[in-house]
């Protein structure tokens, strides 16, 4: 556990440093970014440089950045007139809501499809497989556009945006969750089918188990194992997809903040987002690792 924590911290540090370096190497000065579209005279520049302490050597800036980081200070956004910590704090909620809802949707759909069609006839499996194929092949933003046009603008079933209650979450969660469901569904179904061909499945049948009980009690757990190993992909897709979904649906959230920060080269915000997603990644992969251990006794101990 200690070792895991250590590795996690090292990964975080490396991620922070790497992105710091990357942004340092990027074209354009920080001052340029701070000046932005506004008026630009040497006088204004000088004022900005002193205000942000940009006249210090880069190493010092880096060290002070790390130092502040250790103390929980993420700095101040170049573009938004606010502290980065505060921005993230207000934006984490909606993104967490969205990604969790999408993850829930994806997992539930995938599990349902897998359970209903696992070990069934060709037709059911073919249909499921085609649906999954479409879900993974359509670009996520297209799914979003289609969902919006149909269910919000035309049918008016769901509001288009905002955190106006759980209803507003339905379409974004679907848009983000469908591709997840597609991939997970494929993996789960494949796992189920493979598990049902294993000798232990025959043994279980020989005990008089129904197919349904066989799937629920035996095969499903086996199917979960490859699904769990998708952890990294899973978080990546959700967090990355959140960018597009939030922009499209006009939802608040980190994805949008990240997108704006990246296009505006808002370094402190970008760094914070990098750190945050590294934290999320490390956490989730740890959790899923533990889940993996819980599911598969063979790798314990």
């Amino acid at each position: 556990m200690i070792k895991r924590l250590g590795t996690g911290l090292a990964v975080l540090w490396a991620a922070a440093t790497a992105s710091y370096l990357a942004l340092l190497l990027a074209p354009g000065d920080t001052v340029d970014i701070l000046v932005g579209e506004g008026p630009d005279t040497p006088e204004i520049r000088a004022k900005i440089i002193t205000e942000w302490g940009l006249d210090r050597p880069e190493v010092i800036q880096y060290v002070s950045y790390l130092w502040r980081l250790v103390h929980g200070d993420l700095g101040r956004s170049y573009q938004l007139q606010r502290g980065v910590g505060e921005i993230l704090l207000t934006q984490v909620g909606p993104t967490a809501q969205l990604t969790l809802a999408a993850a829930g949707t994806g997992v539930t759909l995938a599990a349902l499809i897998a359970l209903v069609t696992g070990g069934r006839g060709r037709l059911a499996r073919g249909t499921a497989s085609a649906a999954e194929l479409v879900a993974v092949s359509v670009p996520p933003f297209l799914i979003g556009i289609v969902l919006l046009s149909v269910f919000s603008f035309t049918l008016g079933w769901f509001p288009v945006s905002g955190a106006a209650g759980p209803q507003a979450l339905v379409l974004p969660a679907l848009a983000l969750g469908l591709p997840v469901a597609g991939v997970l569904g494929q993996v789960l179904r494949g796992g189920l089918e493979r598990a049902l061909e294993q000798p232990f499945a025959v043994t279980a049948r020989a005990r008089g188990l129904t197919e349904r009980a066989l799937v629920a009690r035996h095969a499903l757990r086996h199917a979960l194992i490859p699904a769990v190993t998708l952890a990294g992909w899973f978080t990546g897709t959700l967090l990355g997809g959140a960018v597009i979904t939030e922009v499209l649906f006009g939802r608040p959230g980190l994805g949008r903040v990240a997108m704006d920060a990246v296009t505006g080269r808002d370094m402190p915000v970008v760094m914070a987002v990098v750190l945050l997603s590294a934290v999320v990644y490390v956490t989730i992969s740890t959790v899923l690792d533990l889940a993996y251990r819980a599911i598969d006794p063979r790798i314990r101990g």
Partner: protein
Amino acid sequence: MSFGGSEVVRGISLSVAPGECVAIVGESGSGKSVTARTLLGLAGPGSAVRAGTFTIAGQDARGFGPGEWRRLRGRFAGLVLQDALVSLDPLRTVGAEIAEVLAVHDVVPRSRRAGRVLELLEAAGVPEPEVRAGQHPHELSGGLRQRVLIASAIAAGPELIIADEPTTALDVTVQAQILRLLADRKAAGTALLLISHDLAVVGSIADRILVMRDGRIVEEGPARDVLTTPAHDYTCSLLAAVPSAASRGTRLTEAERPTPGIRHVASARPTGATPSGPATGPVKGAVKGAVKGAVKGLAAEPVPVLAGAGLTRSFGPRRVVDDVSFTLHRGETLGVVGESGSGKTTLARLALGLLAPGDGLVTLHQQPWSTLRERLRRPLRPRIQLISQNPLDSFDPRHTCGRLVAEPLRSLPRQERRARVLDLLARVGLPPDMAGRHPRELSGGQRQRIAIARALGPRPDVLVCDEPVSALDVSIQAQVLDLLAELQAEYGTALLFISHDLGVVLHLADRVLVMKDGRVVEEGDVDEVFTQPRHPYTRDLVAAVPRLPVPR
């Protein structure tokens, strides 16, 4: 029984009565498992079953629906599947697996299930059932898993147990225990359908034996009759294929391939040159004496080619090989027996210089070997070759047989190499067109022949054989053992022959090393060890070897 049009099993008629043990014997692929599964309606997807009559407990099973089958399975008949190692759900505790049968058929109320599971484990001969019930299959040895499987098969008190190869892949001692366990059930009045490829195994327990070949029953009768006075040729060859001390120096199979190598060997063995039927007792004895004499003569002045002294090797805190010494002389076969995990493979890797000993020294031709730097060892490597347990695993999956056999011959010019490969293939009794095929298209026996041909390529002085036949069924095993014996006689190669099967070692080896927990517990001449085992473990081992009833 057919799968998508191709008939796999034809015209099988069989019946099992309470308290009776019927055994089905036959080589791999003969349709034994399919028959067993069909009896419980578990032939699998895409299968079609036709039957004249099919009665289970007095009911006509031909019209059974899924529900009726389910009520039957577990409750009326328990099935012990062929592959014990993978027939338990690896993700659940073994206790849960057994409790499942109890739950499905509602044998005992929920509250008493846990207690019943322990009783069942106890009955199946599992020590410490409380501990074991909470463990997962991977924490159990093969024998224990087999017992758990049996416990789950008998949980609902079925009237019939179908056991498909319940002892294959188990150590002999464990095998004996399992057979005893099954015999107990039989004695308790349960009907038993036992499936095996090994006649000796079923001989000790079966009342009636059915011999299967290519999906048909070729012979059927009371066990004793079938084993002592087999009527069918196939049964005879099966019987003859069982290696044992008694079969030493004889061929286990008929010499059916007139290849140059074999003719050569055949001529070296006057008595073995004209085998015209099942090798029966008296003939065996004669051949044994003759060949034995010849081998002894050859090694009149024993020259050590490979030796280990005080070898020790640990993985982590565990000493896997502990102070083992051995000497292998020219032309000699040194057998190494021991149960699974006793360190046999590790010893082989030490001998091959693939693993550095923690302590001790291996010498090759009386020169230091294990202490050499790999660069210096490389030129000497052709002198000592390996045949491994799983040939497929030792083949690069992309290569054809020809390329595989050619690999150790890289120093030869192209043309010569091709010729050598064809020659080697011929020596191991494979047609030249094998060179173009991929090993995964071959049968187990053919694969092992390729492995042997490859190992012989560099004309090694020592061949390390790590369980070369344990993945093969008796008849194929017999062919491979014969081949090894022939080639050894021809080339005078020394064999370090590792096996967990005492019968195989007794058949082939001159001297034997008995290993247990990484130590050598007994060492000596095969005959002595076999007839007068000194160590208790060796005694168990010898006692556990199943024996065919000797015809009077």
